[in-house]
């Protein structure tokens, strides 16, 4: 029964995908095409761009992404617990408190470490 529920999602995907493809094709067909080398240049405030945009970038963004992955996994772990929270009772709650305490400890560590400092 459950997998039946996913059929409408496939339907929606077909409709949405069809719309996107159609729109992209139509705009490609209908739009005027008068290209020139200057027009196809990248915008860099009206002057020739200096260097490539695909340069090594600040590591801090990557750090944020890594931290996100770490914490997101932990958050996802909370979901099954939250659904069954009432059945698990006090024991489950206390157990999860311990888990959250660990999570917070790690969180405190990265803050103290300055991983999220941008200045």
């Amino acid at each position: 029964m459950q997998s039946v529920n996913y059929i409408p999602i496939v339907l929606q995907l077909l409709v949405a995908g069809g719309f996107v493809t159609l729109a992209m094709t139509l705009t490609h067909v209908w739009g005027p095409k008068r290209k020139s080398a200057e027009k196809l240049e990248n915008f860099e405030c009206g002057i020739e761009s200096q260097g490539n945009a695909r340069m090594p970038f600040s590591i801090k963004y990557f750090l944020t992404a890594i931290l996100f992955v770490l914490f997101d996994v932990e958050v996802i772990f909370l979901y099954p617990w939250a659904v069954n929270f009432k059945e698990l009772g006090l024991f489950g709650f206390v157990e999860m408190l311990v888990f959250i305490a660990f999570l917070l400890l790690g969180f405190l560590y990265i803050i103290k470490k300055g991983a999220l400092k941008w200045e």
Partner: protein
Amino acid sequence: MQQYTDIEEEKEYNTLNLGPTHPATHGIFQNVLKMDGEIIVSSEPTIGYIHRAFEKIAEHRPYYQITPLTDRMNYCSSPINNMGWHMTMEKLIGAEIPKRAQYMRIIIMELARIADHIVCNSVIGVDTGALTGFTYVWQDREKIYEVYEEICGARLTTNIGRIGGFERDFNKTTWEKINDALNSIEKRWAEFERLLSRNRIFMDRCIGCGPITAEKALGYGFTGPNLRAAGVDYDVRVMSPYSSYEDFDFTIPVGTNGDTYDRFMVRNTEIWESIKIIRQAMNNLPEGNYHADIPEFYLPPKDDVYTKMEALIYHFKIVMGETDVPKGEVYHCVEGGNGELGFYLVSDGGRTPYRLHFRRPCFIYYQAYPEMIKGAMLSDAILTMSSMNVIAGELDA
């Protein structure tokens, strides 16, 4: 072979061109920023990205024709530029201006200052992302422009007034429009201040953003609101009063940190002070003539030109620049919307100036810009620029 002595040197930075056509560079100027992520490592402003050679053009124009050139410097408050130039000329020829004309000038100059500050402060709002205040208060700027329009027919590049005073007395509509503008500014500006000045996000963005100390500011030659925000109470209107500013009662607001928030608040307060000055001028307006009695420099009324011989001769001589100008060297400064706007004029007695130099406040602020934004974030850099009210027209050198 390039040799690296320090590991830091090897770090790669991104080069980002901020300008010439960037939404935040109001006007055309270029900054080449070296960025480490969001942080600006160094910046290099291109001085003179636009160069219209006003000073050079002015050396080839009769004195009468230089006024329109001054319009184009700080185009947010062109009447101040126009009148500053007129006063410089009057200083050179030693003309005595009637009190009434001086008061009228003060009214227009203070309106221009309000317009300038409206632009600056509302654009600070835009650059922090709050567009509403901007479009809301620009209605008042529109009202001020209508006053200009009533007096001289133009709005942005006003070319307002004449050497010696005004071309005509303010009519009834003008006075009504000035009154109307003041009432509306008082109401709307209070709303604008309520919207932004205590907004937590706005304060977080502005406080401590692009600060400059008083010593540094003085060292760079800052004047006007930007210097006052750093805590130095220097105002040309008080230090060397011109056009009867000594008759008026007003206070000069000063900040403490010289950061964006201080600049914002100083300008806010100055708007209220300007309104006070205009009200005083309107209430105590002396009777008298609206122009000085200097027929060799003051353009005669058009009616007289068609009917009277002397008027026709003077008209011809003034327009063609055939009037003799005394030899000499004068410096006159006025408190422009952005700071001390100076005119250094050397006359050798010919029909054009021998040398004319404009002291443009923005040009000086822009020199300090790289130092102020070093180590700041990209957003701060933009906010600093707009809060200093760097107008591209004044970077023209």
